[in-house]
């Protein structure tokens, strides 16, 4: 079972690598959206510093959203979702493997890019740690919640907009705690509470999201 699970992650990474560009697109979108803000609100450092955390987090969230709709759609279209559903492991583990692969190809690269954008946004030097840890804990949650939305809209024509409408409200808690962790760190407060909240959300969704997504995938295949 572990073997199949790891093979599934490798499969999605191989496909992402072959089809190319998934990670690069997400990063490019992330960088572009964030770099719009200095142009839009002006380059005054104190202004940028105030909006840095929110801007980076919102842009990361949008980048993840943008990459969600192919999570199951491509596999449904060519029939390989049937084959995945018929593997001798529970469908929820298939979903978990795909969510992990999704995070490795989007959430992780975004997390690693975030400090560079912090530089651009005049982020306070004390806040980089909180930004990194927050995104490290928050982006997997985004991928997992996104899996539910992607599974719900998998058979829907032009489901991308619907997916956004379903998933965005569910992203709000991650956004709130992610941003406030950075702001707390910038002002010299402890970030333990925020980090614990982000960890709790990750632990919760890692259990619930694969099961919920597996259920909606079963309905889509039925």
């Amino acid at each position, binding site marked *: 079972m572990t073997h*199949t699970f790891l093979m599934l992650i490798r499969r999605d990474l191989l496909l992402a690598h072959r089809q190319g560009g998934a990670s690069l697109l997400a990063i490019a979108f992330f960088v572009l959206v964030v770099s719009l803000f200095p142009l839009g609100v002006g380059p005054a450092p104190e202004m940028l510093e105030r909006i840095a955390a929110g801007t980076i987090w919102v842009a990361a969230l949008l980048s993840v959203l943008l990459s969600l709709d192919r999570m199951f759609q491509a596999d449904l279209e060519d029939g390989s979702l049937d084959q995945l559903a018929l*593997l001798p*492991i529970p469908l929820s583990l298939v979903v978990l493997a795909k969510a992990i692969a999704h995070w490795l190809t989007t959430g992780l690269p975004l997390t690693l890019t975030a400090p560079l954008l912090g530089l651009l946004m005049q982020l306070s030097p004390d806040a980089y740690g909180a930004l990194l840890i927050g995104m490290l804990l928050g982006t997997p949650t985004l991928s997992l919640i996104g899996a539910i939305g992607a599974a719900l809209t998998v058979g829907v024509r032009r489901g991308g907009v619907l997916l956004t409408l379903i998933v965005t409200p569910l992203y709000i808690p991650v956004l709130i705690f992610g941003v406030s962790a950075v702001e707390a760190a910038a002002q010299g407060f402890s970030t333990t509470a925020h980090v614990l909240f982000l960890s709790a959300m990750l632990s919760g969704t890692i259990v619930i999201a694969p099961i919920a997504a597996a259920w909606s995938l079963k309905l889509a*295949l039925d």
Partner: protein
Amino acid sequence: MAEDPLLEGRSLAALRGERLIFTGIDVTLAPGELLKLVGRNGAGKSTLMRMIAGLVTPFAGQVTWRGNPVGDDRDGFCAEMIYAGHQDGLKTALTAAENLALFGRLRGAESRSADHALAAFGIGDLSDLPVRFMSAGQRRRVSLARLLVAPARLWLLDEPLTALDTGAIEQLGAVVDAHRTDGGMVIAATHADLPGRPGKVLEIVPPDPFDDDDAFEDEPDASDGLEAGA
């Protein structure tokens, strides 16, 4: 041949969009047997196939494998079954050999090589070609070659002959025959003849529509109203 059936489906019924597609279908399959599903378009051949595979929940009835309902040990059943749907389920960005290796490894069968499977369907020379450059028939051959990459007792083939030329149909017939000789079982939904030893045939006929009419006979007004509405 007198072995007990491993796969049994009892009084299966399918409901699609509030319409009863078939009802009272019984399927039994013992080692070495081939079952051909026939029926007009839309009779529910694919639905029955997906139902046996466990992708579609039966509206009524039950599928059992080795005497136990498949729902009791789904993973065990899936490990012994390969479903080849009418979509080929291949990744076009990968080569034929990569597709097969992926399929084999996901099912935990490292040892069998993809080359002999491709050779059995006459496309051994195409193993390094990405699937997106292949014709429909070649893709179908690759998708059928999966049957030989991971061992499975039961093969479910939904329209396996689509896009295949006569040579490939002969090869599939030989592969199916060899599988049956080894005690394997095959269910194939196809109208054309599969070469090789003949098997059982199950025709799926639509359920009698009279049941609905009977219900309305006591209330002719309701029936009239319905027809006018339709």
